[in-house]
């Protein structure tokens, strides 16, 4: 069985924004910023490194998650795989085709659900689907039937003839999913599909995605919600600052999370000095400083808190906040990056 997606040494460096600003009227720098949706990850003299040698492999029929904070390179990865971002170097294959060598043929095989719904506002809901199908060479009568079926399946039939502005956020998101499915793609990409949805709409969307997956579609989804990745994905790639940190099933990732409860103690100054006394606390297996945050992994849960406060005070620091995190994807992420997801 072949891979649905395969990337090798994938790298993307965007031109430095400061240089773009000076190009004036004639350049795209004059408009709203193009798709560079991240906080600068790492700036070199050549530009902003959004993706740094990413190797991924997604099997056919897999539900795959890209998990990482804003600015991790998720959207850039999706951009490359959906042929909208040109990689600086490396190789990316989708459905067996090279995205730079055969972008048109790749597009024929993928469906894309964008981060923010971008329906064609001059058309009605149904027309959005029918015309999108026509852009993929599907004859009108077949497209219309298929569109009606999809609207029914996604429960927006009553809005078929409405202009898309009349749709709620959740309905527009479902329209985007219907649009991504109308040409029966082999691989579906969803970029943060549940951002901005209310809990009910989010769970409805989960059901739709589970159903698609059950029907054998390959799904690649980015998210910065731990719960979402945990609930839906068969495998998760954790990315941060353009690099792949881990890639496995949610179960195995969670099992690899550092033992015990993570106690995050925020201090009124640098936490570095508090690491040594914290390590001496009974039950603490590991302690690290992240700025003013002291991260201690405790085998005895919250019982270590009083001793950690004392440890901080012993180096002249005052504790301003305490947060407990049970072993989870989140604590794994924090142990890998020293940062929270959102």
């Amino acid at each position, binding site marked *: 069985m*072949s*891979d*649905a997606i*395969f990337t090798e040494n994938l790298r993307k460096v*965007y031109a430095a924004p400061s240089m773009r600003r000076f190009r004036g*009227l*004639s*350049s*795209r720098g*004059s*408009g*709203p910023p*193009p*798709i*560079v949706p991240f906080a600068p990850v790492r700036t070199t003299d050549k530009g902003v490194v959004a993706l740094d040698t990413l190797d991924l492999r997604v099997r*056919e029929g897999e539900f795959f998650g890209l998990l990482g904070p804003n600015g991790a390179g998720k959207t850039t990865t999706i*951009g490359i795989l*959906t042929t*909208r*971002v*040109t990689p600086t170097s490396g190789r990316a*294959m989708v*459905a*067996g*085709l090279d995205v730079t060598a055969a972008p*048109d*043929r790749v*597009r*024929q*095989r993928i469906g*894309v659900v*964008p981060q*923010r719904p*971008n*329906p*064609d*506002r*001059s*058309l009605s809901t149904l*027309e*959005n689907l029918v*015309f*999108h199908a*026509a*852009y*993929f*060479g599907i004859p009108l009568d077949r497209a219309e039937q298929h569109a009606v079926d999809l609207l029914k399946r996604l429960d927006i039939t009553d809005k078929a003839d409405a202009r898309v502005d009349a749709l709620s956020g959740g309905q527009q998101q479902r329209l985007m999913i219907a*649009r991504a499915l109308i040409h029966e793609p*082999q691989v579906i990409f969803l970029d943060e599909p549940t951002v901005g949805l209310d809990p009910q709409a989010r769970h409805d969307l989960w059901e739709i995605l589970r159903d698609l997956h059950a029907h054998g579609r390959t799904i690649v989804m980015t998210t910065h919600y731990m719960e979402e990745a945990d609930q839906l994905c068969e495998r998760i790639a954790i990315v941060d600052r353009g690099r792949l940190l881990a890639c496995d099933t949610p179960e195995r990732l969670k099992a690899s999370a550092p033992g015990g409860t993570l106690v995050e103690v925020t201090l009124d100054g640098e936490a570095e000095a508090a690491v040594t006394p914290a390590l001496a606390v009974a039950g603490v297996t590991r302690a690290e400083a992240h700025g003013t945050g002291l991260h201690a992994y405790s085998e005895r849960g919250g019982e270590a808190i009083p001793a950690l406060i004392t440890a901080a005070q012993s180096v002249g620091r005052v504790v301003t906040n305490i947060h407990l995190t049970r072993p989870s994807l989140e604590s794994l992420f924090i142990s890998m990056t020293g940062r929270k997801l959102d």
Partner: protein
Amino acid sequence: MTTPSPLAAERPRVSPASVFWALLRRDARVARRELPSFLVRTIMQPVLFIIVFGYLLPRMGFVQAGYTSALLPGIIAVSLTLSSVQSVALPMVQDFGFTREIEDRLLAPIPIRLVAIEKVVSGALQGVLAACVVLPIARLIMGPIAGLHLPNAALALGVTLLGSTVFASLGLVIGTAISATQIGLMFSIIVAPMLMFGCAYYPWRGLDAVPAFKYGVLINPLVYVAEAMRGALTPSLPHMPLWVACAAMVAMSALFLAIGLRGFVRRSMS
């Protein structure tokens, strides 16, 4: 992974022509729905001009009756100019701005440049439509026009199509180069002077009186459209040689299209 997987083989390739046709049909559907506002947007300005300069002023005796013969082809040129530029540039500025509505077409399995070329074709057709609507209105308001030679309808249509292509291509340049916040500025700085110094409201030969202007306006594409239109509609009156005007229009179309396509690809891809 160097050999294509079985996945790659199973689908027939979509023909770019059929996708192009679908894109055109989409624009036609939208244009039909927005016909009233399209007509107002593109016809208002020329018609007001016709009323003032083609009807009121001649009646008042401020301009000679023969002025309408010089004005009519220019007005047609202005109509197609406004229509083609706006029908490409305005939606595109929005598309590349906040809404990103064009994404659904950028996902089509055809080269991205074809999406831009379709926009130019659709804009050019809207320019032709505007010219065809304004001509009878102008004739109606101005009354009989000396030297109007309608048997050249096919030639006039060809000139209209060529002129519309020039300005639809310019619309692509503008639509990909400026942001939504600058659109008003663009009309004040680029379009308004282009209309006034485009030899639309006076013949180019009339500028013999002001040589600096006569050669200065030659960078203005509207000059060639207006002069070619004079060559087609009122051939007996003085005008730039038709072949010169047409050659200039072809060259300018090619130039604008090349710049516009580059801009389009740059805005679509990162």
